[in-house]
């Protein structure tokens, strides 16, 4: 594996991770490490298995085989809600929000999940101001101010993508798995998102794993890049190494740029 330096702290590790859907092998014995406080991108054409890999890492789907380690602990068969409490957050490629709840409530719920008040049946939720405060803070971070009382289903697409991120940010995860956060965004909306990600990285205590089709963005903000193809890892390294990798370059990068339109 490229960029392997022993003194770096590994936050998330996959060992021979495999996922089969019937006869189809969506993720084929993938091993890899994510270093703490880095931005690690995963790229690859449609159907490469990126989302499936995220589903395995976040506990959404059980792997057919293999193991996952988070901060040195085996978390292979943990349900997603436990992952969240251990500091792993995840956003979805296909917007996955609470359509009939307000923007504020969408994020407030995620903030509430991290506290210890969710089993209080006989107190009014408005008594727990801290979750609402936290939600408003996050709303500012993702730039949805003024839309707090709007029902999520009435948001524009780009705003829904921001809400999707906000729901994850509210849990204040240590590691953020972002599945194509720019999916369906217009190119004018991308810089804003880029800035959000850079601001998170600037704090120095967060790790981001990013699945993304926009190569310019990936090349400019990533510390490491993993290229996936047909469920396997094709190449791994720094943006420079990936750009210079003849295998990736010749067989692959062209096709990736071609993919841009399709996304």
């Amino acid at each position, binding site marked *: 594996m490229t960029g392997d330096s022993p003194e770096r702290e590994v936050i998330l590790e996959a060992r021979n991770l495999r996922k089969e859907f019937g006869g189809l092998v969506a993720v084929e014995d993938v091993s890899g490490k994510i270093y703490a406080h880095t931005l690690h991108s995963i790229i690859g054409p449609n159907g490469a298995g990126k989302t499936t890999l995220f589903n395995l890492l*976040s506990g959404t789907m059980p792997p057919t085989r293999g193991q996952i380690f988070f901060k040195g602990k085996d978390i292979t068969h943990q349900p997603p*809600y436990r992952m969240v409490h251990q500091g792993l957050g995840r956003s979805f490629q296909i917007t996955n929000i*609470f359509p009939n709840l307000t923007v504020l409530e969408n994020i407030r*719920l995620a903030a509430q999940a*991290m506290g210890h008040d969710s089993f*209080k*049946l006989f107190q009014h939720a408005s008594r727990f101001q801290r979750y609402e405060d936290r939600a408003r803070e996050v709303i500012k971070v993702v730039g949805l101010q003024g839309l707090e009382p709007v029902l999520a289903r009435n948001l524009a697409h780009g705003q829904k993508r921001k809400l999707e991120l906000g*729901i994850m940010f509210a849990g204040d995860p240590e590691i953020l798995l972002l599945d194509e956060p720019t999916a369906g965004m217009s190119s004018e909306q991308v810089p804003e998102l880029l800035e959000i990600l850079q601001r998170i990285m600037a704090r120095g205590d967060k790790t981001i794993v990013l699945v993304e089709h926009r190569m310019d963005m990936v090349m400019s903000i990533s510390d490491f890049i993993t290229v996936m193809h047909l469920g396997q890892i094709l190449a791994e390294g720094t943006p420079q190494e990936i750009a210079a990798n003849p295998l990736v370059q010749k067989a692959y990068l062209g096709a990736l740029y071609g993919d841009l339109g399709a996304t």
Partner: protein
Amino acid sequence: MSEKAEKRVNGKMGAPLGWIRQHWGELAVVVGLILFPYIFGLLSGTSVSQGATKFWQGQLIVMFIMAVYAMSYDLLLGYTGILSFGHAAFFGGGAYAMALFLTHVAPKVTDSYRIMVGSINIADLLMLLAGFLLAVLVAVLLGLLFSAVSSRVKGAYFAMITLAMGQAIHILSKATDFVDWTGADEGLHGVPVPIWLNPTQFRLRFYFIALAFMLIMYLITRRIVNSPTGRVFVAIRENESRVRMIGYNPAVYRSIAFVTAAVIAGLAGGLYALWTMSATPSMTSSALTINALIMGILGGIGTLIGPMLGAVLREFLGHFFYQWFGARWPLVFGVLFILLVLFLPYGIVGTWRLRRLELRQGWQRFLRLFKPEKE
């Protein structure tokens, strides 16, 4: 923050008046229900404890209890998105707990202990409380059982498992093996309710107790749906997989919803056993479960008030339709119900809140019933 702070200060200064102005609708209903026996008595020229006045107090008592029952079902269906077909088990479980306790256990205690305060034997009162406690206990166990057995299945399978468990409780209530205790098919009759609560002798007193019961249960349930836990219920209804990915275990919250709904239904069942002085297999029947569904849909699920209104409407219509159409009344009611679902798909309260009467869409849905589907 200033706006909010201002509101808070204003709210405090004009506290009682402001509060009354905000809740005048609810208050009017409560005051109306308190005055109902007296006004009805005046208008019909009968005393409050006789004739038509007494009869209608009885009708309203049943409505109050059914309103609580329908509301408990709303906690499951309307708020958590759980479509269970065994709700009568909770109601009936509470009713049987109360009736069995008062018939077989309480007399042994009250015969030997008499603590009189005025004309009321405190031991009687304690036995009643114990009866309700037992109803709660039975409901908790049933709620846990239902959620445990059904937690691994979804959709139609879930509905079938809850139906099967509901039927199992129903069969248990009819089982001849326990005929000495439960009366099997016949049920338990002539349950020894304390004299001072006898629903025939002290109808007006029972009326106020049932009214207070409904109001308290409504306030408690409204608080539950607005609590941090209640917010998670709604989130599960909206998007269960996302709930899991923001850090909640939906199975736990579904169990809580089941248990709370069961307890509220069980308490309603306990009071119903006092009212009828009986517990019969009809109280655990699937017909009663379907009634919860009908009441909810009539009034509008996910609104609490809607299903309560639906229960009142269902009882009213049941009464008058029986008078007008005799034994065929369910047929007429069924037709009316279909029309209501077509024209008011969100129920009465749901449609009211949306401020949208979909008459034209309703008419089209109606016509579609008679037109063969074109491919």
